[in-house]
């Protein structure tokens, strides 16, 4: 057993607000061995990021205080003077962050930013530093590295920027790399590339990695050992395989229960509720089976045919149309009452635009949207308002979805009042009723949104949508911004409401595992087109289209046995649906693999 690279002993980090010091990391202890990958997993507020910042001593000194010992190969970093600590940062321990889009300096070229790291830690000249930087850029597989050396960050996509960040971090061959959720903001196929790259570089440089994440699937794939954090405490630690198969702490059990595992719904046709585990006792309830909510013989509630939405891009002096984004290109599907159809795909595939086009928040170019027998796409604006009552939308960001100045009761009542469905007194009663329906309490009526958590706010948005008694709800990444356990709760709520009110959902998401639990049918979108559509069981168990297969293979699965799996690196960027103005999209043909399961012919 070689000596650990990093040894944390009784780390306590506190922040001051006013006169009060609040500990955010409490008495944490763990080791990282050389060449080992340790994952720190937890939800928001768990203190995992602060742990990383404490190790790097990037915690602001004015309001932050670090206590305990942080031993880097025996040397305690906590009392180290700043000038010595600076040599450690980037030289012995490096860190990469979550947001690649804002983590690079926009006014300096990427080559310069990598070269300057080298010059901070070694006594070398500019030319030598640049040569070395170029070598590293090659190592992280930036295509045409030499040509792109002098370009600015805004010319690179998110995945590419993260590669640049990795190059900067590894330039001086640190012993430990701290990766703070580096792939959270990336699409799943890009995420797979980056995770693969980190694994490869770890082997090549022989370094240890501390990987911070909330995604159990990522943990299973990368970590030798895992530490679970909850509200500042390290509640459980152990070898990853053992932790997943036999969790001991109630919180770990709750977390694992809430993680959707791709392939866990095999053999079931209907959506499935998540089991809810009590955080304190660790006891799990038995999820009831969801009732049948769809009448297979009914006419479809929503029937979309050949929907096309394009965005013109203008450039040049006269503002001529220089190209078009073919966001939605000939999309057709139908949806019955009580049914959930998922639109799944990566960024730029057009799933969000499809949802918005159906509600006419964005104007489609052509196509029909038959809802309750009327074509929404061609309705005049005056009649659109009435139609809007029956189809509602729930958005991704719960923090921005409610007016911060209005009480939540006011926000929920407003649609009813605006559409004349209720007067002030009846609205008040309805609001109380709706709050109970979504699992909140009626005495929260006069509170402001900032007093609620993310999950609670999403429930409030659902309550607001329900006030108009809609038949269709478009959920646009409605649970993507929520913590894992909250995600599960909100999904359970949505399934309950579907059973009670016969709601149809158009569930837009990039998360295949969540989609597997929630949907009756699935449509996979790529570059504005549906490439595969069918009953969930059919598409997931027997994916036909190459893109569907690629997507499913990229999803990190919370199965530790997959840790040794290597995908083989590719550098593909996600293509964008941007075309020249004279582009005519080809006609697409679909082949029926089994009843209701259609695949696009390539």
């Amino acid at each position, binding site marked *: 057993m070689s000596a650990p690279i990093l040894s944390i002993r009784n780390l306590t980090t506190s922040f001051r607000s006013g006169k009060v010091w609040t500990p955010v990391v409490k008495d944490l202890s763990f080791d990282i061995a050389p060449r080992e990958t340790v994952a720190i997993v937890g939800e928001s507020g768990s203190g995992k990021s602060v742990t990383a910042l404490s190790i790097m001593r990037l915690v602001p000194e004015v309001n932050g205080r670090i206590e305990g010992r942080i031993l880097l190969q025996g040397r305690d970093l906590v009392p180290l003077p700043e000038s010595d600590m600076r040599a450690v940062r980037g030289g012995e321990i490096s860190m990469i962050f979550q947001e690649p889009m804002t*983590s690079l300096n*926009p006014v300096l070229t990427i080559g310069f930013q990598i070269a300057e790291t080298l010059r901070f830690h070694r006594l070398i000249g500019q030319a030598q530093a640049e040569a070395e930087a170029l070598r590293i850029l090659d190592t992280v597989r930036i295509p045409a590295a030499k040509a792109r050396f002098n370009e600015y960050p805004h010319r690179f996509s998110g995945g590419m920027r993260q590669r640049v960040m990795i190059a*900067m*971090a590894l330039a001086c061959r640190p012993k430990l790399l701290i990766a703070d959720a580096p792939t959270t903001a990336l699409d799943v196929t890009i995420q797979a590339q980056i995770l693969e790259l980190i694994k490869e570089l770890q082997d090549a440089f022989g370094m240890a990695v501390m990987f911070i994440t909330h995604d159990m699937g990522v943990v299973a794939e990368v970590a030798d050992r895992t530490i679970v954090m909850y509200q500042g405490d390290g509640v459980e630690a152990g070898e990853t395989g053992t932790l997943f198969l036999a969790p001991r702490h109630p919180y770990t059990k709750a977390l694992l229960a809430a993680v959707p595992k791709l392939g866990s719904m095999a053999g079931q046709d209907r959506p499935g509720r998540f089991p809810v585990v009590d955080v304190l006792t660790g006891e799990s309830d038995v999820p009831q089976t969801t009732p049948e909510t769809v009448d297979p013989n009914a006419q479809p509630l929503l029937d979309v045919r050949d929907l096309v939405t394009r965005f013109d891009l203008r450039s040049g002096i006269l503002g001529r149309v220089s190209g078009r984004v073919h966001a939605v290109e000939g999309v057709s599907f139908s949806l019955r009452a009580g049914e959930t159809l998922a639109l799944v795909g990566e960024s730029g595939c057009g799933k969000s635009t499809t949802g918005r086009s159906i509600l006419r928040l964005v104007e489609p170019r052509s196509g029909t949207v038959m809802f309750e027998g009327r074509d929404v796409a061609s309705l005049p604006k005056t009649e659109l308002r009435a139609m809007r009552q029956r189809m509602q939308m729930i958005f991704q960001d719960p923090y921005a979805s409610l007016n911060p100045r209005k009480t939540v009761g006011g926000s929920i009542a407003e649609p009813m009042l605006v559409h004349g469905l209720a007067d002030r007194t009846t609205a008040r009663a309805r609001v109380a009723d709706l709050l109970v329906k979504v699992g909140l309490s009626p005495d929260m009526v006069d509170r402001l949104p900032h007093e609620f958590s993310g999950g609670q706010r999403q429930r409030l948005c659902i309550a607001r949508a329900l006030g108009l008694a809609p038949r269709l709800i478009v959920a646009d990444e409605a649970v993507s911004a929520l913590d894992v356990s909250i995600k599960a709760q909100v999904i359970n709520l949505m399934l309950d409401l579907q059973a009670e009110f016969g709601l149809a959902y158009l569930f837009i998401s990039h998360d295949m595992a969540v989609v597997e639990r929630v949907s009756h049918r699935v449509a996979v979108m790529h570059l504005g087109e549906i490439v595969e559509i069918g009953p969930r069981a059919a598409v997931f168990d027997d994916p036909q289209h190459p893109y569907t297969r690629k997507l499913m293979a990229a999803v990190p699965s919370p199965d530790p046995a997959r840790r040794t799996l290597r995908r083989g690196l590719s550098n593909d960027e996600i293509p964008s649906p941007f075309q020249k103005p004279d582009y005519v999209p080809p006609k697409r043909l679909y082949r029926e693999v089994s009843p209701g399961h259609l695949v696009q012919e390539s």
Partner: protein
Amino acid sequence: MKTFLVRRLGFALVTMFAVLTIIFMIVRVLPGDPAMVILGDQADAAAIAALRTRLGLDQPLLVQYLEFLGGAVRGDWGVSLVTGRPVVQDVLDVLPWTIELTVSALLIGAIIGIPLGVWAAINRNRAIDYATRMVSLLGLSFPAFVSGIMLLIGLAIQLRWFPVISGNRSNLSSWALSLALPAINLGLIMAAYITRVTRSAMLEVLSEDYVRTARAKGAPWKIVVWRHALRNALIPIITIVGLYLGVLIGNSVLTEIVFNRPGLGKLIVGALNQRDYTMLQGMMVIYTMLVVGINLATDLVYGAADPRVKMS
């Protein structure tokens, strides 16, 4: 960058016409008779009518407008009612004085303001930060003529360090001495503005992710501040200082009066006092062109500084 340039130029031209039209409209449409204002309300009707004809005020509005625009384009900005010389001539005569005053004020402001603002930002919430904020707030609260008068009273009249009346260019030292007080007056006010802008821009930038990345790389604090933070902060600083140049021009008018210095300001005030209507109208056009030009220049500097614009 070329598209950006041409676009901005096009906009500049269009807006110049728009602003001139607006100013024209304001003056013509609101109640008040310029001729009466010039001659005073004691003048007889015949004299007023004659002046109106001479100024072209009896023509239909559209004709007046076209004449006005046409003149502006041709470079014919009217003839002074008082001196009989073309407005352009008078303006060119005094332009060097105004330019040297504004440029020196800007330099003083930047040399004092930027380092002070950076220093306040990196020492935020400490005593020096509060002191800087209070002093700079006090500085920009001064109307330029009040601070000018105080400087005049204190340094010129009481202490006799500087001449009371400036405008002596006979040799280098007297030129410097007579430029000093007016430039210091304007410069200190400018410094107050620039300090505040720099401080808030730096605070914004210092909390950005890429500054955290620079620190995580092991960059020395000095390099973080000057290479990573300030270079980014300069972009909004340039934009906002461009806006403040308007304030600078306004303050230079007041300074020129207080220190009895030739310049555009004194020209416009002289025209006011002497009711030189055409001179005023001509100067209106000139100021518009000046402002549009400054706006354009600021945009260009901003475009050159921000690679996201430069490369597109």
